[in-house]
């Protein structure tokens, strides 16, 4: 019981750090060559019309979530946000792969070398991690609810 309690405490924390690093890395590699990122995003068949502000939005979201994941008070909300972002990204990949006229690539850094299928698996892995982390961090509430 004690061991599992420890995992319950540490797992969400580990996932938060992992996600945080991922977002920081992704966002920084985009910022490094922001012009290139905007061009690539604009060439995407889904976001063509919105590329300019989506580029900024993605960057800001990634940094904000990465930052909030480090703060205890916001961790749960940040985990949800991270889950949402990963789900959006995965949906994007699936839509591009199946429904678009042509397939662009706009992932940065090391991830540029990932194939689309590997990318989906990579994302799915993170979605699972985040889901588990959220589920594990919620039962922390009951002890607080019964302080007596």
């Amino acid at each position, binding site marked *: 019981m004690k061991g599992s309690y420890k995992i319950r405490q540490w797992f969400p924390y580990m996932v938060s750090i992992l996600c945080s690093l991922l977002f920081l890395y992704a966002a920084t590699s985009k910022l490094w060559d922001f012009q*290139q990122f905007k061009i690539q995003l604009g*060439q995407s068949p889904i976001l*063509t019309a*919105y*590329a300019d502000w989506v580029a900024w939005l993605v960057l800001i979201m990634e940094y904000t979530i990465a930052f909030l994941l480090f703060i205890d008070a916001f961790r749960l909300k940040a985990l949800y946000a991270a*889950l949402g972002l990963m789900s959006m990204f995965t949906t994007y990949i699936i839509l591009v792969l199946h429904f678009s006229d042509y397939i662009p690539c706009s992932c940065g850094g090391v991830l540029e070398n990932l194939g689309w299928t590997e990318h989906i698996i990579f994302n799915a892995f993170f979605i699972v991690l985040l889901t588990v982390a959220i589920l594990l961090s919620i039962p922390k509430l009951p002890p607080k609810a019964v302080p007596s």
Partner: protein
Amino acid sequence: MIGNNSYIKILGTMGLSIGIMVILFLSSEQQVHRNNAFTRRYPPHPIQKVYALDLGFNSYYIAGFETDALFLANHTAPRHLLQIDLASQDTAHIKIDFQGKNLPYRSLKIALFPPYFFVMDGSAPYVLKGTTKDWVAKPWIEDAGYFMKGIPIDSNVIFLSTIDSRDQMTALGLLKKTDQTALELYPDVLTPQIDGVFDVDGTIMFDPGSNTLGYSYFYRNEFLVLSPNLDSINTLKSIDTVTVAQIQLATDSRTQASQMKAPPLTVNKTATLFQNLALINSPRLGRNEPSHMLMEASIIDVYNWQKDLYAFSFYLYDEGSKVKEFRLYKHWLVALMGSTVAVYRLDPKFFSIPINPTDNPKEKTTGQ
């Protein structure tokens, strides 16, 4: 209870995210392909498919026609021509003999002006000329100026598009060889809207039957019909509503080259002239058109440029892939789609076919 609640929250988060992406995708598709401001007319069967031949390669392009034969040249095998008799479907392979010193070629293009044929490379630049009797290409013009696209419009004139060195913008011109070689540029024919290079890009056209030249802009609802010496410019509007090119340019941070920041909105994908008609392949849907048609066919809009009016539209159904290039000749329509060439017969009710002057004076749109 709390556990249940968090499942709902997780699923809700995922559902919301997926929903947002799908909505973004659909609205972007809508913007690119659909435009409900114009309506097309599809009269029954203006063309009828006769046959389709598999060429085995997708690198063929249309070099021209002579008598009843279509000639296809190949980007990856520049000395090779495929001759197809449009009536009998017989094919023959032709080998072109390039004479003169070893010429470098980067973007070689072969085009017929019977009984002559021309081998053009505007990036070298040179033009070779020969006759279709023996298919020997001899040096004809060398170093007269670089050009991007060219079509022979007479035995000694080539209609071309190039970058004008004076203002670095795209201009149309004529490359002539009479006593002397001369490259004449006409910088006022094309109207720049953004940078004068990307935004004015388009298809150059020539119809030997009516002896007219043409130019259709890729990114705006306009095309030009021109006299062979480029002195009379007839500007016409296509039925689309995009009047100003919707392209965004950016300078690449790595190479410093100017490039497209977003996929441009293409209005006139490819086009051809035939007698009094201009035919334009549009990738955009009009009012009440089913969107699945864009997946199954290419839309061709037909304009009567003499009367300055939109006549009708028809579909060219995909043969493995979309129409890359199409041309009308005698009573045929020839379309290249991927590695297939499809041949259609024109209905004389809709097209004024040159051989037998059986022009129907009552004209098009026989009710729908």
